[in-house]
């Protein structure tokens, strides 16, 4: 297995594939951040599906599988899809999700019809056009890399150039518009760049699953950082990691399509991020929640001890645990044992517990804090 991988990296064609998928992952990852932050995650899915008829029509017109022509067709179809979506939303009562669903299914359906038609024709070049459904990174050639690379560089350059404008429009579009930035045009420009970054990945990842590479790395990246530029860089990194590892794994098995494997890889990154990221992770916040609950419970036990002792005039007086259990919410014994470890309580004889001097101080502090709050 190890030998297989190292020999893969030495292989020239495989190097091409790795470079190609790295471009796809980084471009999709960075643009995906803006799609996710502008709550347009599903737009990516819609555009990717909408690109299929564009690819087919470009092929039918040119009868060649030149990347430039096919990608140009995909871009045109993607842009038309996005424009129609905009028009439906502007001029009809349809909700956004319904509009997305309509565009996606109509374009994709039409694309499938065209694809089937092309495959039924006696065109020598037609074989291999169906890689655009689920993607096959192995079909990437040097020429494809040039095309993808130049498109990718253009997208990233625009992202850097318009960074401030994209940021303010994504955060507060009305405000951006009062500053004199044409919010709608900038919004559509971001969508246009998203179309390009999707189209770049279609050959290797496929129209069906390309949207995952737009959405998932950004979602994962959001978990780890609270800063936009860091989120973009992390998202690009996650995009590269998942697409490269997906390509390597899928190349180990014959006829394994790349798209699904890449999606599995990116899903693993998302799941790990959702659960284990510091601050935002589900796991971490669950632990924080439990800790908080424990603190509240033990604070209450200490407070109860203190209040019982007020009758006795000795704050460290030891009480019968049954009384504490009666006013508490159960599991008092385990809480008391933990408090004993912290030296906040003592138990002079079995079943009897009292505050230590340290415990008395702690409770007095607690009472002072709650008074101030």
């Amino acid at each position, binding site marked *: 297995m190890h030998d297989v991988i190292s020999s893969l990296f030495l292989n020239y064609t495989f190097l091409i594939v790795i470079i190609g998928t790295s471009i796809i992952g980084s471009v999709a990852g960075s643009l995906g951040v803006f799609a996710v932050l502008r*709550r347009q995650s599903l737009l990516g899915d819609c555009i990717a599906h909408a690109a299929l008829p564009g690819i087919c029509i470009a092929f039918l017109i040119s009868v060649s599988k030149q990347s430039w022509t096919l990608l140009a067709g995909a871009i045109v179809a993607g842009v038309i899809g996005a424009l129609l979506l905009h028009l439906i939303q502007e001029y009809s009562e349809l909700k956004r999700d319904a509009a997305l669903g309509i565009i996606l299914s109509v374009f994709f359906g039409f694309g499938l019809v065209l694809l089937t038609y092309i495959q039924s024709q006696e065109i020598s070049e037609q074989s291999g056009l169906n890689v655009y459904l689920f993607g096959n990174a192995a079909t990437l050639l040097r020429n494809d890399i040039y095309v993808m690379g130049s498109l990718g560089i253009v997208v990233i350059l625009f992202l850097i150039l318009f960074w401030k404008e994209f940021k303010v429009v994504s*955060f507060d579009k009305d*405000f951006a*518009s*009062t*500053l004199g930035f044409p919010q709608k045009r900038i919004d559509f420009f971001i969508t246009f760049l998203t179309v390009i970054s999707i189209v770049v990945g279609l050959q290797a990842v496929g129209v069906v699953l390309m949207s995952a590479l737009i959405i998932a790395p950004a979602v994962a990246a959001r978990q780890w*950082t*609270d800063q*936009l530029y860091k989120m973009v860089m992390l998202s690009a990194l996650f995009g590269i990691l998942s697409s490269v590892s997906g390509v390597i794994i899928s190349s180990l098995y014959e006829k394994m399509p790349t798209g699904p494997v890449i999606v599995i890889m990116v899903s693993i990154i998302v799941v790990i991020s959702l659960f284990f990221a510091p601050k935002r992770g589900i796991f971490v916040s669950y632990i924080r929640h439990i800790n908080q609950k424990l603190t509240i419970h033990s604070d209450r036990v200490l407070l109860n001890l203190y209040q019982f002792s007020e009758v006795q005039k000795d704050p460290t007086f030891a009480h019968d645990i049954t009384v504490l259990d009666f006013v508490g919410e159960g599991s008092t014994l385990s809480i008391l044992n933990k408090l004993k470890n912290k030296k906040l309580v003592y138990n002079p004889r079995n079943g009897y517990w009292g505050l230590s001097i340290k415990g008395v101080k702690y409770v007095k502090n607690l009472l002072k804090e709650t008074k101030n709050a």
Partner: protein
Amino acid sequence: MIENKALITVNDLTVAYKEKPVLWDIDVEIPKGVLLSVVGPNGAGKTTLIKAMLGLIKPAAGTVSFFGQNYKRVRKKIAYIPQRNSVDWDFPTTVIDVVLMGRYGHLGWFSRPGVTDYELAKKALEKVGMEDFFDRQINQLSGGQQQRIFLARALVQDAEIYFMDEPFVGVDIATEKAIVNLLKLLRSDGKTVIVVHHDLQTLKEYFDWVLLLNVRKIACGPVKKVLTPKNLQLTYGGRTFNIGKDVALNLDLD
């Protein structure tokens, strides 16, 4: 052109969503240096009015002019503070970054904020009492703090006219007082402040001018002159009976 004393002039402004008019034939003249509150019941078109004045909503008819000019030519002199809840406070950014956005209009396309912009932003944060929060994530802020940094973002715009949409909704008393004090400071600097507001109780205390609105303009002028039982009845319509107590409190005019 005829000499016009009003700083802001709204002429025959009408806005409609689908066929339903939201604002009908509004004529308003606002002089320089007032603290104006736009008041009216829910659905009266308060937010729509300021959005239409700022060109965020396209009116069906009518014109708005600032300093006798079209909004687009003087937008740098006008700052807008949207409703706090109109943005996603989980957006990955820091307090200082949000305040710096107020400089973006002056910076224009492509150029990035520099040292002077940072200094201005920090000063604005000091004015709203948030200087210790400059590198804080915005998702850690309370409602009042969010409103304060929105105000700071408007302050760095160094404008002549300030529009605020419901700045007192969901903020603590301390923030409300702090905002009011800042607004009064702005007014004493000769700035004009227009605030969408809906608390009749505090109207007299906070503002010197009021625009009573309910789809149509009911009245606009100095609070003491305009806030009459009749005008309130016209603004709130039949609902006067429901809010009878509130109105009665506010009718306690000298």
